């Protein structure tokens, strides 16, 4: 019988149950919040570590008394010198930049001189020191070693005492004493790898191997212009024995060319190995050995274009010496080319001496007077290179024109005409490339994204006020500026390479960041609640930061030319761009999902904390109850997520099918179940899952958020994970060590998804409550008033 008493009993029963449930929920809630904050701390700690990695070297002191930086004008002109490397003509700036990153794990070299001054020099300045002030360079600490144990293993006193896994930077002179040990260790590792092509190096072996490679590289660069220094600045004893070092003093290597007979390199090597009896023969042999040594050292910096327009391989100074040795008729040309270099070497040496002798109060004009002629010499070198490039282009064009006229069939003619159209002047975009790096577009972008976020945070201090509005608009402006830098950087890279924007993994990072920010800003324009701006700024920071770290980690030039199979502009522009836009939309959808869940889940935190301290008023309210404006907010996020998921769907499907058509058109199979193809397919399938489940009413806002986070996990799997499987056509983005980062992000995503569960429970019990309220109302009408309200009812 539904009497008043029964109903009252029911009501208090429900109340008691709910009070118990509430307690459990509160405890669980606080635990989860704790976990989330722990994740945040871990993430920011790693970010901080990575960001300050460059300057966390324990001891960056050098025995140098002081350090005179290179004059601006010289650095500028040096940057513009054309060098052939990695299959293209690039500025010495780029060459130096990636060389320093490879050796030093940072694009700037830091050290402290004895006079207490801390210095931070750029890669070009470092390269200038390596090439022209060899003894100075040997004292700069820029060899990055990731684990102290590697240094200890070769007998060098470590900077961190005995602690393992500490990374630090050492100078060449600190390592030089144990050069042989380093070579021995590295030789052992090489031998193991030669015998077994599948051999996997241990972490320590990898570090030692890398150090040995870097030290070798430095020695070669250090000795590049050694031939012009008459025996000064030679590398350590391990590289050249003492008697040869003595013999080298004062020797004019270029002058030797005049008197050496014509011989091949092999014959030279034979002569070097012969038994020398008389003093004269010994002297001649030493001369041969030195000639060979300097010729061998001078082959890494290929800055001289071949005189023959048909050849494409550039020469280093050592190559020139070899050419002159083998062919008497070329000696005049060789000497002419080498004279330019010798001139620079001599004049900059004289410049430093003169500058050192300048009194303290010397005027800038006096300095300029000394520096200017040297800078001019560098400029002359660049101008000579430009002139030679032009001549080569004309000569190539003439040669092809002759071939076209002589071609007997139309196919050959067509191919030759295509080749002619593709002919470009070598190094035409060098100045632009230097500009790209000196403008630091992506670094600026990162800084402005950070600034934008700070401005946003400030605007939250006083929500709703005019102050907040002003700062909000400022933030948007700054974020747009940051996006502008990003897009400008992407455009410049495309122009310099004459290629569509995305050709390798590095390009994808900057592009996807740009698209995510752009889409987030567009969302902001349509919704105007500030959600878009927050996501734009945070995504921008994350993405730009990732791109900078990736560039340093890979330590290879990100603009080197492509393999033949990728060498087609049309498909690169369409398929690759579309797929990456799809990736960006997927990532944005997952960010929105995360925003949704964190917003709803963390919002009651202050209330719950207050409840703990005994303020009983909130003890009975369900923690996840929300006022209308909050509900409107999160419903809006849900709608935005859905919109972005649809956007992702369109671009992923079109991009994936385009990829299939490219594959079918170009090499015969539409779909090969290649891991990267599978990754793209999974993104298409999952967006369809979200779509259909929403249309069928099986997921609403919470489900949408959770499923979009899963979408984000699938996108990162397809973007980064498949490259690590080592199978199939697409494994060309070498990314070890990324798997660890991926797993951490996935684990954190799962944790955030778990936050959806209590929200869903809350929603369900809310629905249950609503149903019961209706029931009670109905019975109330039957029975007639006077029943206590259920908890939660207003």
């Amino acid at each position, binding site marked *: 019988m539904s009497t008043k008493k029964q109903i009252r009993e029911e009501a208090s029963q429900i109340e008691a149950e709910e009070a118990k449930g509430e307690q459990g929920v509160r405890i669980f809630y606080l635990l989860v919040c704790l976990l989330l904050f722990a994740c945040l701390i871990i993430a920011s700690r790693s970010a901080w570590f990575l960001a300050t990695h460059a300057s966390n070297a324990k001891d960056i002191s050098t025995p140098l008394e002081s350090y005179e930086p290179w004059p601006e004008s010289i650095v500028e002109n040096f940057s513009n010198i054309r060098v052939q490397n990695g299959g293209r003509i690039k500025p010495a700036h780029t060459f130096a930049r990636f060389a320093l990153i490879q050796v030093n794990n940072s694009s700037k070299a830091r050290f402290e001189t004895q006079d207490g001054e801390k210095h931070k020099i750029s890669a070009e300045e470092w390269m200038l020191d390596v090439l022209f002030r060899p003894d100075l360079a040997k004292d700069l600490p820029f060899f990055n070693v990731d684990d102290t144990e590697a240094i200890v293993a070769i007998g060098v006193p470590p900077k961190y005492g005995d602690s393992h896994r500490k990374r630090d930077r050492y100078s060449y002179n600190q390592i030089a004493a144990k050069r042989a040990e380093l070579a021995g260790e590295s030789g052992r590792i090489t031998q193991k790898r030669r*015998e077994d092509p599948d051999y996997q190096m241990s972490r320590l072996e990898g570090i030692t191997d890398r150090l040995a490679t870097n030290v070798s590289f430095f020695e070669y660069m250090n000795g590049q212009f050694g031939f012009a220094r008459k025996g000064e600045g030679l590398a350590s004893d391990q590289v050249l024995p003492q008697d040869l070092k003595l013999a080298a003093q004062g020797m004019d290597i270029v002058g030797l060319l005049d008197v050496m007979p014509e011989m091949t390199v092999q014959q030279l090597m034979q002569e070097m190995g012969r038994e020398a009896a008389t003093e004269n023969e010994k002297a001649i042999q030493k001369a041969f050995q030195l000639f060979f040594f300097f010729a061998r050292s001078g082959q890494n910096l290929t800055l001289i274009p071949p005189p023959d327009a048909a050849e494409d391989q550039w020469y280093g100074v050592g190559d020139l010496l070899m050419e002159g040795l083998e062919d008497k008729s070329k000696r005049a040309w060789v000497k002419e080319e080498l004279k330019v270099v010798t001139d620079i070497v001599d004049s900059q040496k004289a410049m430093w001496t003169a500058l050192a002798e300048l009194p303290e109060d010397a005027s800038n004009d006096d300095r300029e007077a000394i520096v200017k002629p040297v800078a001019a010499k560098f400029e002359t070198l660049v101008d000579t290179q430009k002139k030679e490039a032009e001549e080569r282009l004309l000569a190539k064009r003439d040669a092809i024109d002759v071939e076209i006229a002589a071609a007997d069939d139309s196919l050959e003619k067509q191919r030759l005409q295509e080749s002619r159209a593709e002919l470009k002047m070598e190094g035409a975009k060098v100045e632009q490339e230097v500009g790209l790096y000196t403008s630091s577009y992506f670094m600026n972008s990162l800084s402005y994204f950070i600034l934008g976020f700070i401005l946003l945070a400030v605007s939250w201090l006083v929500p709703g006020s005019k102050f907040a509005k002003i700062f909000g608009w400022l933030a948007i402006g700054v974020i747009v500026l940051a996006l502008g830098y990003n897009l400008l950087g992407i455009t410049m890279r495309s122009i310099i390479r004459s290629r569509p924007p995305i050709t390798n993994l590095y390009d994808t990072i900057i592009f996807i960041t740009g698209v995510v920010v752009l889409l987030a800003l567009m969302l902001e324009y349509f919704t105007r609640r500030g959600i878009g701006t927050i996501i734009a700024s945070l995504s921008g920071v994350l993405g730009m930061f990732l791109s900078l770290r990736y560039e340093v980690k890979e330590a290879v030039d990100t603009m080197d030319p492509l393999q033949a199979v990728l060498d087609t502009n049309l498909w690169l522009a369409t398929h690759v761009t579309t797929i990456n836009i799809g990736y960006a939309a997927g990532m944005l959808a997952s960010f929105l999902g995360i925003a949704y869940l964190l917003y709803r889940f963390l919002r009651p935190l202050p209330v719950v904390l207050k409840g703990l301290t005994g303020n009983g008023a909130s003890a009975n309210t369900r923690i996840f109850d929300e006022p209308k404006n909050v509900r409107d907010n999160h419903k809006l996020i849900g709608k935005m997520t859905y919109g972005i998921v649809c956007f992702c769907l369109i671009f992923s499907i079109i991009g994936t099918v385009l990829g299939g058509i490219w594959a079918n058109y170009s090499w015969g199979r539409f779909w090969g179940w290649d891991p990267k193809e599978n990754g793209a397919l999974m993104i298409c399938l999952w967006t369809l899952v979200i779509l259909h489940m929403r249309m069928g009413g099986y997921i609403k806002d919470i489900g949408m958020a959770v499923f979009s986070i899963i979408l984000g996990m699938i996108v990162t799997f397809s973007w980064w994970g498949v490259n690590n499987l080592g199978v199939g056509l697409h494994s060309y983005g070498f990314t070890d060590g990324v798997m660890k980062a991926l797993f951490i992000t996935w684990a954190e995503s799962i944790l955030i998804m778990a936050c959806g569960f209590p929200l869903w429970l809350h929603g369900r019990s809310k629905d249950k409550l609503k149903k019961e309220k209706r029931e009670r109302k109905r019975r109330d009408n039957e029975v007639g008033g006077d029943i206590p309200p259920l908890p939660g009812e207003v």
Partner: protein
Amino acid sequence: MKNFLKTSILATASVLVLCNCQESGPIEVTEVREINPAVKLEIPVLAKSDTERFRMSEKKPQAQRPATPGAPRLIWDLPEGWKEVETTQMRDANLRFGENDEGECYLTKLSGGGGGLVANVNRWRGQMGLPDAKPEEINALPKKPLFGTDATYIDLEGDFGGMGGGEAKKDYKMLGLVLTAQGGAVFVKMTGPKTLVDANTAKFDAFCQSLNVDFGAAPEAPAAPAAPSAPESKANKSE
């Protein structure tokens, strides 16, 4: 409804039965391939013997890269019954012997120390499942000539674990010569099942003795003066 169920069950059953029926009787084949005598690549050739058919005879030597003229080349006398396999980037000589090619013998060289004699011998010992030997023991090992110098001679028996993973091959033997010098090291290494290696020890010694370097053509004499050829051309012109 009942009829529908009955028919569908029968249909499924019959399909399953039919599918599982093995074709046990003879199959008649009808596909034909015409040979076009004008297209040589498609014409098969009657093999003279099974050895030729299975391509087990002395193959024509692997298309070695034609050496750069004048470059020093590694030369050796190939022992009878041994096969030359393609050199790899690391193995300057790469030979196989034994009916199933289980025995291999190759030469590698390293510029730079390579770790030294002791380290390398102990590494080989590790590959054969043996513990490290002391430096004094290693320095006291017998010497045999290689390239005219004394090289340390290694003779090890054990289970060959190879360089990577995989199970160790039991009862294997390894012979080797290690030559270390200031500028580098040379390793000649032979591994295989014990009986096979024992049978080929003499051939290994002979092979190592025969290893040499050919330095290529002598430097070209300066261009001969025109005089000797002049009368010839004059004679031609007068014709």
